[in-house]
């Protein structure tokens, strides 16, 4: 048929046009969205103050100021903030003083913005606390929480496991912890563990890590599992007990620790101390969102993961954690 008189020239033309139209992608700059600098803040209120010597900056308050997304400013911390915590009667019960820019690996690599609590407040379960922060040039911010009630650790045990070639020199064991749980409420937990000497003191490098090296470690997604520490960026596992419907539940995890690592004073680990923290819902949501953010920040195949905040007109969290501990002699 005449209409099908397709010669090679026509085919070539089709090819050229096809190539042109598929290579016509263009891009132009678009203005950055407007951003108003605001206070960023992080503080976890506990039933007992953290000890600097053991916890590093984990028990401190951090205050910073946000910048536009394309700002090149490196250190966003602010050391000129005025921060207080008031109770439900409006009385100031905690104040903070800036800490000189720390320089050790524990203390944030010399960055500004850290504050130490001055009054060593011991937060009481069921009480409501309000944190207020003022930073010159920025809108004042506020966060509020009601301290959760603690759980009871009924029992805990450590069962030795064969050592792993993937974690040479480290001791492996199976940690099992049973806690009481209020079946009528949604509670939020986080579990951490560390080693102590015979006198109950914590030493450097005496952490307990979840054993991710072992393929037989039955880590249940969405279940309670061991977190390295609150300040750890990679392994934070806050847990909501929505899938537990009883008066108690048990969680278990394979763990790694350095049983034989003694310090220069020949203090050696003797106990594993397990801490079960009952969290406020805001703390749970913040920690969960922070983990999602850090897990996915470089991944183009994920949804955006904004970090949860309960700071009005600002960023970050004012969270609460009620800790209970249980010591297990090292096997």
């Amino acid at each position, binding site marked *: 048929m005449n209409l099908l008189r397709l010669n090679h020239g026509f085919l070539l033309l089709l090819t050229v046009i096809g190539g042109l*139209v598929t290579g016509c992608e263009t891009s132009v700059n*678009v203005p950055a*969205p407007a951003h108003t600098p605001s206070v960023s803040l992080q503080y976890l209120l506990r039933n007992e103050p953290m000890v600097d010597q053991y916890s590093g900056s984990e028990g401190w308050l*951090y205050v910073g100021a946000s*910048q536009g997304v394309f700002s*090149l400013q490196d250190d966003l*911390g602010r050391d000129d903030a005025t921060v207080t915590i008031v109770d439900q009667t409006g009385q100031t019960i905690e104040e903070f003083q800036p800490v000189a820019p720390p320089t050790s690996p524990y203390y944030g690599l010399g960055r500004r913005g850290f504050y130490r609590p001055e009054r060593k407040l011991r937060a009481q379960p069921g009480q409501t606390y309000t944190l207020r922060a003022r930073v010159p040039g920025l809108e004042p911010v506020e966060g509020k929480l009601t301290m959760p009630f603690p759980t009871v650790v009924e029992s805990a045990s450590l069962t030795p496991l064969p050592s792993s070639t993937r974690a040479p020199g480290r001791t492996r064991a199976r940690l099992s912890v049973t806690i009481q749980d209020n079946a009528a409420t949604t509670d939020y937990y986080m579990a951490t563990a560390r080693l102590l000497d015979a006198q109950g003191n914590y030493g450097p490098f005496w952490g307990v890590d979840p054993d991710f090296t072992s393929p037989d470690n039955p880590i249940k997604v969405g279940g309670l599992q061991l977190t390295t520490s609150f300040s750890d*960026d990679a392994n934070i596992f806050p847990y909501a007990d929505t899938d537990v419907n009883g008066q108690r539940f048990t969680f278990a995890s394979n763990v790694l620790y350095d049983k034989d690592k003694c310090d220069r004073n020949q203090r050696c680990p003797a106990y594993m101390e397990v801490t079960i923290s009952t969290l406020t819902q805001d703390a749970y949501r913040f920690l969960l969102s922070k983990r999602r953010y850090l897990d996915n920040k470089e991944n183009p195949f994920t949804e955006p*993961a904004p970090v949860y905040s309960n700071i009005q007109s600002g960023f970050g969290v004012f969270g609460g954690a009620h800790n209970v501990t249980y010591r297990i002699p090292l096997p």
Partner: protein
Amino acid sequence: MFTTTNAVGRLVCFVFLLGCWASFPGLGQAPPASPLARTIRLNNPTGTLGSVLAEISQQTGLSFGYSNDVVAAAAPVRIPAGPQTVKSILDAVLSARGLSYTLLDQQIIIRKKPAATKSKTITFSGYVRDAATGENLIGVTVVQPGTGLGTATNTYGFYSLTLPAADTVRLLVSYLGYQQAQWTASGTGNVRHDFGLPVATNELAAVEVVGSREEKIVQSTRMGTINVPITQIKSLPRLFGETDVLKVLQLLPGVQSGSEGQSGLYVRGGSPDQNLILLDGAPVYNAAHLFGFFSVFNADAINNVDLIKGGFPARYGGRLSSVLDISMKEGNMQKFHGEGAIGLVASKLTLEGPIKKDVASFIVSGRRTYIDILARPIIKAQLRSEGEEGSLGYYFYDLNGKLNWKVSPRDRLYLSAYTGQDAFYSNSRREAGETFDQSSSELGWGNLTAALRWNRIINDRLFVNTHFTYSQYQLDVGVDQSSRYRVNDELRSDRFSLSYLSNIRDLSLKSDFEYAPNPNHYIRFGGQFIRHVFRPGALQSNDNIGGVSSQINTVNRQLGNEANLYLEDDYRLSERLKVNVGLRFNSFVIAKKLYPSLEPRLAARYLLTEDWSLKASYARTSQFIHLLANSGIGLPTDLWVPATARIKPQQAQQFGLGAARALRFKGEDYELSFESYYKPMRNLIEYQEGANFLGNTETNWEDKVTSGNGWAYGGELFLQKKSGRTTGWIGYTLAWSTRCFPELNQGRLFPYKYDRRHDASLVIIHKLKDNLTLSGSWVYGTGNATTLAQGRFSLGNSQDNYQDYGGRNNYRMAAYHRLDLDLSKTKKKKWGEVVNSFSLYNAYSRRNPYYLYLKEGKVDAAGNLEESTYKQVSLFPIIPSFSKSFRF
């Protein structure tokens, strides 16, 4: 915080403003005195009935409508002399002759008085077809002139009209683009009669426009329903020379496109998975080729396209936002025909004809892209220059087929099937002596549908259609790698293969009954059972690397059973008020969990005047399947998953309020409609924040999603020009679409990503000459909403800063607008005709946003800092294309 009250308030305000704009007749004015009360004096009170009516008309300006079968104009009448009201004159001359009358606007309709006692009725039934091809015609009006009684043919071209018995009955059958048919029969017994309508002229056929085929917009109870003729679709400009049904639908008010070039439909604030797309009754789960740049529907194989955006009749269900009901052609019963086209990226061919004349016919249609074939020599040469043998490319194809068999005068069977596939493939092999590296990979996705349908006329008033359908959508990813290499003196081989698939399969049995007991009722009832088989992600992996073998095999599936029953009635309560009322019961069972849903449906039309009608509708809908889709472009990796014990079915209600008007301006017909809607939705799903949308399996997808609610509301204005050399329409939509999910955006309300405040379209088709048509379309839409980081902050204990995204979907891309043009010239040949079309897509080369990305800053070699910035990527500048289509 968003509240329903706010939404309703804004909607009411919007309705009010647009209502004022549209200027309802008589708004704010005192009602005028009835023309029937006017007193006149007849100059010739003793003439014929015809002369008396003519004199009333002359003195009052009133016109009369009647059938000569009903009114004997030559009959002598005698009226008392002197001044009298029009009413008293009409009562005197008409009542005695058994006639009644009704005033509609400035026209008096004269009819036979209904009999005082229940009269015997007769039923006329049959099919209306194209006289030349035997193709059933859908939506043809069949009326008894002078009575206002009538019906329209259904999806299979069948009509049933029950009328009062009479000595003779005349029927008028009309359908734009076809010659009108009149038929007179004895009205004493039930009659079966099939109509064959000849095409009017080529010119008339070509000016068919949207919404013109079914009953007039003013008369219909249906809201949010638009019929799009295929001739219209083929007349409009096209991208890369490819006619695209779905892209034409995007030009209608209330229907939005996703982003540049996409064929996805976002109807009244809903998502694409909320559209039920039916091809001959079988659902099509992914209607997109090449990531949405083309739709799977080959216009040459399609007979009819109906889009329902709201006011859903009870016979439709299973989706929240729309029903797109597409009917394939049935195949020419009379003669062998063919048509096809050669385009820039694809060619297609359709053949149809009788298997046995007037008894059975067939149609087959195919389309395939050929960029991969044309580019193959270049790619092979390039690979060879790199020391490899192999190929890579992409193609898609569609195949449609249908058989149509008149088994008996009362029975008809249809067997139709469709399959389409997209495939990316890559193969390479590099050899060096006895060693080699070889790999092949393929990404493919496609639909397969099949439908067996049986039409039976049980009796003249009862018609049944039974469907048995199968539908499947499947994504396949396959990778196979092998190598042979030497370690010292040993020759070793490694092999790795992986295949991932996800699919959804439906098997369905459905029966629809249509019963027309009398002209005031048209009852439909029926039921359907669907067995869904979901396989959201199955992975098979085999490898033998370094002498160690391993195997992964996950092939679980989920089964869901869906059943429904419905009953609806098109009920004419009076000449002014007509309703479509119905009830649908849906149920879904999965893993012993039952989800029942009772769904009332109502649509009503009230005739204010003959040209003006008010409409209202309500529909409750539920949807038992979800589409897991990421917030970027639509990918074939988007997964269909069922409602489960944890993830509840989606539910919606839709309230509609509107008005329609038929206009005539300078001898041309127009239709104007305004519709407003409010649609609250529950149990919608989205990916959780931070969720990875790759690697979903049947076990983990529930952990990645979160449920919430949505609200969509707005108004649509639609003005169509329906006849003349220039036809087309203007559509405008003002709309809001928002979502609220407890686990997203900190539980705060956020705009849906395709929340589009303003959406406008202008479509014009002008016949420059009988064989030369110029068409153009211009669209405008508010920019899409997206989530962009706007700031960064630190929380101290991390080396990295966190990004502040602001609210979800808080950033608006630039507005979208585009002009497309098409010039088509038809040449007659001895064997048929050829149409040469030249199209310009994006004629003024607007750089419309496709997506935004962050370009990180860097320091160049000279030490200069290039700052970070957001970049907008635009896909298509001006795209000229040419296509040649033919028909014989």
